[in-house]
Structures are given as C-alpha cells and as structure tokens.
C-alpha cells in the first residue's frame, strides 16, 4: 500500500501529516482517506411519469451556473448578469461553488492543467448536472488544434449536453444555448451525468491519458 501510494500520489499535500486541531491537540491526517471518497460514483435515480416531468421542469427553470471561467468565452458571461441581457429572468444565475451549481459552462479551450481542476469541480457538482461547451475549441480543438497544452475534444473527458458555435459565442448565443438546454431537460434528455457514471472507466482512461501527474484519487465527490 505504501509503495503503491508513493508511485501514484506524489503531490506533497497528499502525504500523511500531522495537523493541529483548534483545541491544540495534534491529529494525524491521511488526505487520501480523509479528504476523498473511496466509493465509485452511483447513477442517480431517474423517475418516471409526472414526478419526473415535474422534477425536469424544476431543474430546467433553475439553471445555476458555476462561476469558473475556464477560457476566453468567460468574458461574455458577465454581460449576461448585467441588466442588458439579464439572465436571471430565464432562471439562470451564477453560483460561486460547485456544490450549489448544476450547469458547468466550459468557456472554450481547456489546458491540461485546467482540465484536471475542471474534472474535480465537475465531479463535486450534485447530479443531475449539465455541461455546455462554448465555441470551436470544445468541439474540435478550435484555434488550438495543434497546441501541445490544450485538449481537442471536450466530449472525451466530460459528457457534453449542448454545444454553441462561435469563437467566442455572443451572449445571445449563450442564451439560446440555455433555451436549448431547458428544452432538452424538459424532454427528459438531460441525464448525461448518468452517462458519465455508466462510462466512468472510459472517461477516466481518457482523462488519465492526458493528465500526466494524476496525483489524486479517481473519486472526487
């Protein structure tokens, strides 16, 4: 176990260490045990009939977007919050933490370093959750198709619900994206988060292929 641990998790913050508790006592912490879960993810239950319809309606009308500007496209998100576009009236609002959000906007290219954080953040979001890919970069690499540091296709790493064309898409196109997402959720097609769970190994393989220092456990919720 110790050996394996050494090979896998080189990050210093993942080493077993002693910390002081507020009362002054010293306790030992094993970050991998204590801070991460050891369980594989489970799909959430998709209900049937009017209950599910009601839930879908509720989900569609409260899209809470995680405030994580991953690329260029994030410059067009602030205008949506301001009165000119006012996305609150469509039930969309920004949240600061993944625990409160259900929509993740990947605003353009993802460098490998960000991808690692994005995966962690995505996994921390409660299901059902939705991913919107903005611009060319998430579809086929965009301008950075030949860059050594950006991924080419987002759908190899995360399940994507909606793509919006543009480099970068305008706020109006983003609103159209939200409208489309709502439509999908209401039709009951917004369960990509379960796809992620079902094809978990495939996604993890792809993620690990590009993230060279995978110094964290596979499960992040």
């Amino acid at each position, binding site marked *: 176990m110790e050996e394996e641990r050494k090979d896998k998790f080189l990050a210093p913050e993942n080493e077993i260490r002693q910390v002081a508790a507020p009362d002054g006592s010293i306790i030992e912490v094993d970050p991998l045990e204590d801070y991460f879960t050891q369980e594989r993810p489970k799909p959430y239950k998709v209900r049937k009939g009017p209950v599910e319809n009601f839930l879908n309606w509720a989900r569609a009308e409260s899209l809470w977007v995680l405030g994580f500007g991953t690329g260029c496209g994030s410059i067009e998100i602030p205008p949506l919050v301001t009165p000119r576009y006012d996305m609150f009236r469509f039930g969309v609002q920004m949240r600061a933490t993944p625990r409160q959000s259900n929509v993740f906007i990947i605003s353009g290219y993802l460098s490998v370093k960000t991808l690692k954080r994005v995966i962690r953040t995505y996994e921390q979001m409660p299901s059902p959750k939705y991913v919107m890919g903005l611009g060319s970069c998430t579809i086929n690499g*965009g*301008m950075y198709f030949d860059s050594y540091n950006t991924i080419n296709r987002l*759908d190899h790493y995360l399940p994507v619900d*909606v*793509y919006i064309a543009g*480099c970068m898409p305008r706020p109006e196109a983003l609103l159209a994206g939200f*409208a489309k997402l709502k439509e999908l959720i209401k039709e009951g097609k917004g369960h990509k988060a379960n796809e992620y769970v079902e094809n978990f190994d495939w996604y993890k393989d792809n993620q690990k292929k590009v993230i060279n220092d995978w110094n964290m456990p596979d499960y992040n919720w």
Partner: protein
Amino acid sequence: MDIKKLLTPLTAWGNITKDPVTIKDPLNERPGADRYRGFHRNDVEVCIGCGTCEEICENEAIDMVAIAETKDGDSGLRPMIDYGRCCWCALCVDVCTTNSLSMSNEYTWVTTDPEDFRFVPGVDKKDWDKGDKGWKKPENYEFYSIKRVHMEELSPEERNGSFIEMMKGYSKEQAEKEADRCVECGICTATCPAHMGIPEYIKAIRNDDLEEGLRILYDTNPLPEICGRICTHKCESVCSMGHKGDPISIRWLKRYIADQNPSEKYKKILEVENLQPKDKKVAIIGSGPSGLSAAHYLALMGYQVKIFEKLEKAGGMMRYGIPEYRLPYDQIDKDINYILSLGVEIEYNVNIGTDISLEQLGKDYDAVFSGTGLQLGRSTGIEGSDNEHVYYSTDLLRKIAQGEEIEVAESIVVIGGGNVAMDITRSLARLQKEKYGKIQIITTSLEKEENMPADREEVVEAREEGCVINPGWAPKSIEIKDGIPTGLHVVKCNSLFDGEGRFNPQCDLDVKEFWPGTMIVQSIGQGMDISYITEEMREKLEFGPRGRVQTDEYFQTSLKWLFMGGDIIQGPDVIHGIANGHMAAVGIDRMLNPEK
C-alpha cells in the same frame, strides 16, 4: 467619518425611475451588425474551388470536398468548413480569389451533436444563405496585387516594318513582383496539358533560384524558351487571379526563367551529364514540339534517338508557322540545340514515305514516334478560292521563315480569326510597310469579336499596328478580274452554332460588304498530310473520328511499334504536342522496358 460620503452613494437610487435597458427578446431582437462576421456563405456558382481559403486558414478548418462538376478553371471542389476549428477571422473571405465566399450576420447555432458543425456553405442549405448583410471583403484592400506587371514592348511604330521581337522580357524586379501574385492554387497545373509545375517554378522565381526553376520547367517541358513566348497558355485563361484582376503572366515568367539561364550551363543545371545509355533505338518523324519533346525525354532515359525532318531546319511549325517577331529563331535554336546536345541525332531533308518508308523505319528501330503535324492549309471553298493569288497562311508563313520573297500586294484581305490569322495579318502588314510604306489589310472572321479564337492581345496589338480586324462576317465569294482578285464579298454572320451546338452559321444575306484586296489569304485551319502511311498499314491501324489515328493513353497505335502524337492526334496546339511527346516517351519506355 464623513457623513457626506455616507450619503452620496445613495444618489444611485435615482436610477429607480429610469426605464430599464434590458433587451426584451435577446434571441430575436438583435441581428448582427452589417459587417458582422457570422456564419459562412458561399456562392457555389462563382466559386472555382481554388483552395486558397483552405491554404490561408490558420486553423485547418477548411477541407476541399468534391461537389460540383470539374470544368475549365473550376476544380469542382468546394470548401467545407468545420466549426469545431473556425475562429471567424474572415481571412478566407478576404483572400477568396473570386469573392464568392462571404459571411452572414447570423451567429446563433446550438446543437447537441458536435458533428453537425461541419458543413459546405452554399450546398448545405442554411437559414442565413439568403440575406445580404454580414462580412464581405472590404473594397479598399487586397491581400495580393490583382494588377499584372506590365511587360515592356516595342511601340507599334517600332514594330511596324520589322521582325524584331516585340516583347522585351521581364527584369528581375518585375518578374519577382509578378511571381509574388501567385496564390499557388494549382488550377493552372491541372489545366496545362503538360501539367507543368507552374506554382513551383513561380516559387523558384520568388526565391531567386532560377536554376531550380529551369529544372522544374524541364521536368515537363523541354522547350521553355519557345513555350515562354508562344504557348497558348491555357493556364492563364483559368488562373484564379483572373477573376478579380489580371491573370498571372505565367508564360512570360517561364520565358524569364529560360532567358536568364545561359544555354551553356543547361547541362550542368539539369544534371544530365552522365546518363545511362541503353542499346535501344527510337526513330522520330518530324521535329515539331511533339517530336522534340519525345526525343528529349527518350534521350534522358538513355535511348538512341534519331529525328527525321522534312525541311532544312528543325522546329516544325514553331519555326515555319510563327513569325519571327513573336518567336526569334535564335531562341528556337537555343532549345533545340540543347536537346540535340543530349545525343539526339537529326537528319534533315528526309521525307518519310518517299526517301524512306515508314515500314522500313519500323524494322530498323525499336519504336517509331510520328509527330508530323498539320501543314496543309484548309480552303474556304468559296467561289474564286482556287485562284493562284488566293493563298494559304501556312504556306506564306513558311516561305517568310525560309526567307523566300513573297509577292505582297498593296491591299490584302485575310479570312480567319485564329492566332494563325493574326500571325499572317501582322507579318504581311510588316512586309507591306517595308514595301509600300503603308498598311492596308483587313482581317475578318465568322466569329464575333468576343468569340474570336485568337488571343485578345493579338487582336489588340494587330490593331495598334494598323491592321483592320473586322470580325463577324462570313466570306461569300472572291471577285476575280483578269485572273487577279479584286476583293472579297462578305455577309453578316449572326450565329455560328445551332441550338444543339452543331457548326451551322446563320447569315443575314441582306447586310453585305465588299472589301477590296488583290491578295486574299485563307487562314481557317489546317489539315494533316499522312500520305506516308501506306494503304497496307492503314488496314492495320485503327482510325477515330475526323480521320485521326486512334491511339491509347500513351499514344501507341494499334501497330505496337508506332506511336503518334502532336497536332495529328490532338489538333493544333504547341503545349498539347509537348505533352503528347512526353507521354509517348513514357509509353515507349514502358514498351521497351516492360519489367519496370
């Protein structure tokens, strides 16, 4: 704490009475600006599929896919754009050689399937195809110069009465500037029958590497000095630059490369100093473009080549059919002497069929290539055309080239609208000027001005020199008085072809004219003389339409040892001849060296 500073910010509450700035329906209320760079549009009718957009796209977002039919100057490819790559920079629009590509002001496209984002604008119908707003190439700039670099030429006054070459050739700066205009689409390469590496040798000019340029020329064309002057330049007529401006002067650039390389260095530059000789012999009949071309490539392959030429000098129609002011004889000699220096033998004044029979050649040699060309003038067949003062242009041109004195009349009428007609017109005009000090010559053609087969510049230059070109008339009869023509009766010709595309001239007999002239020249095409092929052989040969011998793709006839090419197979055209000769050489090599 300043109480004022506690209260002042509260003035912001004043905004509560103002109208909100919110856009009510942002999805529909906000079209892009007039210049917005939204989704692509392409006018597929105008697009020629040159691929320049693909070339300039820094994201490799554009693929050329086969959509339309390939025709002259249109590759049949159309750009397919991948919106998983595009960055909406509109460089493709600005660089488009035909201005067919533009962008609409639409910007909303949401989908769940990323594969949707690949589409062919103009072919895959989209909502934004119609509107006319959006980005178009700004009028005030181009990414390349669309104006041709002018080549200096003699003034019409200097040209008249002299056979000095009229085009002076490019200087280094001019050639590099002209070469810079090329966008390397390759439509010229595909159109050129010889598939010359045109973008490549233009690139060599830009890089100032004329030796490399010469090597590229000789890869496909062993007569660059000649072709650089008188090629029919199908490449230029399809040049993608010609859609917005002037096509690139590909021909003059070729001439520039050839002119700048001295003939004594050719062997070194072209790396032909130690060829591997083979013990097989090939005979070539005729030293026209196809014969010379075949001889050149066969010699490079190591064959022992011998050319049989009917006249006293080599070059065929290039020497005897094209006036000196367009193609000086020393330039012909430069190309031919190089080919002969590769070990090609040539025997002059040998007439196949009378001096030596074709069968004999076939027995003596491993293969025979015949490129005898079209030397016979074709008659109009109108009344009076059998008069002795009614000439064929081919005969006259040959005589001028041979230095023979010809009887130039004071007033001349030429029938014909092709390049040969222009050649004879301008040659006779020069002779008239020498002899009489003035020019009086009328040239007429069936075709209207815009459809005349002659090159545009030939017509313009002829007019500059004082010749009258009056197209759109059908010759009716030649009036003869005392055995000497007095002139030509013509009627207005309205159309040449009928609804089904057949040659069927429609004339308006009421509109007629009489053009006086004591010398009438017919220049309406040439016929071939294949009398050297005996009856016996004719039975073995297969014939195709229009009395031409049937050959395969390597110009091999049904007699395995006999290859035929050039004008007799392809019709009159120097570059076709060169291509045929080259291909026949490859064919002969394949036949004689089947193991390869």
